[in-house]
Structures are given as structure tokens and as C-alpha cells.
């Protein structure tokens, strides 16, 4: 899965995002869900398959990404 961001109306749902992007439930990480990043600006994040991200780009859909999704680890104890 890769992380992308989309612009949707305030209070948007995953169903609305799928419809807007012409994606199916198999294309996205439903467990992760649709994450509001900045409610005031209507920016949301979601995880999609790499194939779906490529399809969105090929279709010229309005989205940003894929964004890097690096591993994060505790800063301690120092090894």
C-alpha cells in the first residue's frame, strides 16, 4: 500500500472518496481508512495499492502522492 492525499468536502467518507477517485474497496486499505489531515482545508490521506496509484495517475485524477511512508522507530535506548 502507498500513501496518497486527496481533497474532499468536510466530513467526507470513504465511500465518497472511492466514488470520486473511481476506485473499488479492493484498491484501498479499508482498515487504515480515510484520515482527515487538515479538516479546514479538506485534505485527507488514504493508503491504496501501488497499482491503484498508477491508475489514478494515468487517469489524471486529482490527488497527490504517492508519499514516502518510512519506517519509524523508538529513539532509545541507544544501540
Amino acid at each position, binding site marked *: 500500500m502507498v500513501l496518497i492525499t486527496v481533497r474532499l468536502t468536510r466530513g467526507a467518507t470513504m465511500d465518497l472518496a472511492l466514488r470520486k477517485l473511481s476506485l473499488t474497496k479492493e484498491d484501498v486499505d479499508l482498515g*487504515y481508512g480515510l484520515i482527515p489531515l487538515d479538516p479546514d482545508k479538506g485534505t485527507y490521506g488514504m493508503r491504496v495499492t501501488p497499482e491503484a496509484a498508477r491508475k489514478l495517475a494515468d487517469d489524471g485524477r486529482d490527488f497527490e502522492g504517492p508519499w514516502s511512508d518510512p519506517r519509524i522507530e523508538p*529513539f532509545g535506548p541507544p544501540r
Partner: protein
Amino acid sequence: MRVLIQLRPSPDLVAAVADPTMTATTSDVSDGLPGVVLDQSYIPVAVPRPMPASPTGDPLSLNQPLIYSMAPDEASVVLRGEVSDDEVSTRMSLLPGRRDVVAVYADPVIETSLTCGGTPPVGDWHDVERLLRVAELRAEGLDGSGVTLAVTDTGINAAHVARRLGRGLTVDQERSWTPPGVPGGAGEFAVDHGSMCAFDALISAPQASLIDIPVLLSRRPGGSALDGLLSDAVAAFAHLRAVLDAQPAATRSLVVSNSWGSFSPRWDFAPGHPGNYSDNPAHPFNLIVGSLAEAGADLLFAAGNCGRDCPDGRCAYPDRSITGANSHAKVLSIGGVDVNGERVGYSSQGPGRLTQRKPDFCAYTHFAGSRAFGENSPDSGTSAACPVAAGLVAAIRTQWPAARLSPAALRTLLRRSADDRGELGYDYDYGYGIVDAAGIIGALRSRANRAA
């Protein structure tokens, strides 16, 4: 081997060396000593002769009342030089008595002993309590009551933390959040890094209400037991935004302690790539961090353990290891010092990647505290320094919610009140200095008086 050579030249030469208005050089004092390379850049120093204070005193004993004479016929002069390592003992025994030489001494390198990963604990959490002036904070009514303190980490074991603190604590079950698929409930996770962070945060904010966010326990293919993905942190911060928005505006206070980050560029797009995280303020996580801070949250991130003196073995950035949100302009990036005020050798140095002036300041680490990693293991890393600072912020928020003191104003107050260390003013080792609770208390009193 570097050596110091003590000579007793003519009294007029000693007088010239001792006279601060004159500049005598090494070559004025000695035109050379066999087997010694004299350091011509070293300014000769006059050394007084110790003498018995009493006329009947022992002229050869230093264990009695002494006076120190700088009289030209009694004082001596010290020069600096170097002898070959394989001739040290010969030269040191043969030189005295020749060409005015009185004695030859070793000139060892002097340096502080840095605290590194394997160093035993330096002090304990009661030292931290004292340094953070917790008793004074409590007297000012600053104990974290009514303040929400989120620990985004590996989960908290509340029973262990309570046992180590010797007092109860509050974990807010309702407002805690767990990534999908992670078993366990808030406050009931295995004792690990997150329990250390919770313990350290509660040192100065014992009454704060903890929100448990075990973002580093997320399950994914190929992941280890104790790491996560940044997208999990994105989801966690979205939850925290909902927590913040649900608070009444007048009393809003949410402190978020983040003792984690990314060790390697291997998992990231390269700087310059539009999807990059480390150097890109437009990355979704950097956006949500800015948005949450703007909405009224205090966000603290550990600076990292990639200090040049003894970096963590996982550090893979070739330089500027304070990356991404850990270097965000709207967060406090926390470096580490031990309870003696010395920077720990692994504490990451600036400049940061998103904002140059990182770390912001340092807080205490490497002390015996939670024992989350065993009886003799310290609470260490900038991982411990971050919640120590976050606890102090939570204590402040008891009387100073975001509506009264904005997160930006609080960040400025903490930077300005820090006890300056290292170079004068800001430096990339200590930032603005070491967090100073006394300075903070004073600044808050002044602010309250001005407002009254």
C-alpha cells in the same frame, strides 16, 4: 608524548615572563633542549614556588600551610614540548638538572567523559525531579491537573509505571487510540519504551491524564515488533486533532510526546523528490503536525540519537540527522543532557532539515528511572529527554491553557528561559540551552503580573 617542562632561568627572565605587560616567548626562555621539540606557539607561564608559611616549616612538604612566591629568584617557568614516545622515560629522567630544567611532567589530553549508550545511569529520577523544581511547580499549582498528555510510542504499562513512581496515574481509556489490528488495551501493553516515556513525562506532571497511542506497535508485513510506519502516525495525529477539537476552547491543552523518528534515508524518497518526507514540509505528516500545532497542541519530538560522538548504530543519514517532523518549525525538538548538565554523546546535533535551529533545547536523560529495560538500565536516549520536557510543558498547561498562552508563545518562552550552554547563544549541540524550570516559573509569574 606531549610534556610540560619546568625551568628556572635567570631572575630577569622569570620577571619578564611573569610581567603581564611583556610578552616573552619560548625561544626567549630556552634556545633548545636535547630530544625535545619545543612548542614555539605556547606562551611561557610563570609558576610560583610553594614555601612554608611558618619559618620553622618543612621546606620539602606540601602538606602544611603554604605561601606562594612569585619573586623572580624563586618562581619558575613552564614551557610545552614533545618528546619521542620511545624516549619518554630516558628524557624525563635525564633532562632535569640540564639547561635550567627543574622537572618534566606529562601533559595529558583533558576532556570530559561523555555519556554514551553503554554508560551506566547518571543520577536518578529524583535528581530530575529536583532539577525540574517539581516541588516549586506544585506550589505554583502546576502539576498537570486537567491536562491531556499523549504518549505516541509502544504503549504504556500503567501498573509498571505506577509501581515505579510509587503513586497512581490516570490513563484515559476513552481518548486513547490503537492502530487497527493491534491487540491490547490502553495502559495494558508490555513494559517497554512507551512505559519509560510515560514514567518520565509524569515526573513533573504527576496529575496529567495520559492518552496511550501505541503507534509503534502497528502490524504490517515485514515489520518488527517495535516499529511502525509514518502513515500510522498520520492516523494517530488525526485522532489527536479530534481529541483537541472536542475540548472547550477556553481550557484547551494537549501535549504530545514523540520519542521516535526515522533512522535511515533508505525508507524515504530522496530529498527533492515530491514524495520525500525528511526534507519536505509538504509531506502529509509534516502538514498534519503543523495543523495540530496551529489548532493549539504542544508537540515535542526527540531530536534523535545520532550525535557525532557516539551515534546509535542504526543512524544512516550522512549528515543533518534531525529530519522531517523532528525538525518542524512548530514543534520543540529535544536534545539530551545528563543530570550534570553535560550533553550526552548520542544526542543529535543540528542543523535540522525542515528548520535549521534544531534542537530547540535539551532536557535530562540517561538516569535511573522507570527500569523499563531492566534493573540497571537507565532511561536513556533523547527518547527520555523528550517526555521529561513534555511533562514540564504539561505542568505549565495546568494554569496556562492554549487560549492563555499559545503554543508558539510557550515555545518562545521555553527557548528564551533555557540555561545557555556550549557556545554563547544558540548552538547546534544544546540548542538554546538546558530547560530551566526556575526561569520558566519566573517568566510565568511576570506574565501573570502584567496581565493582572
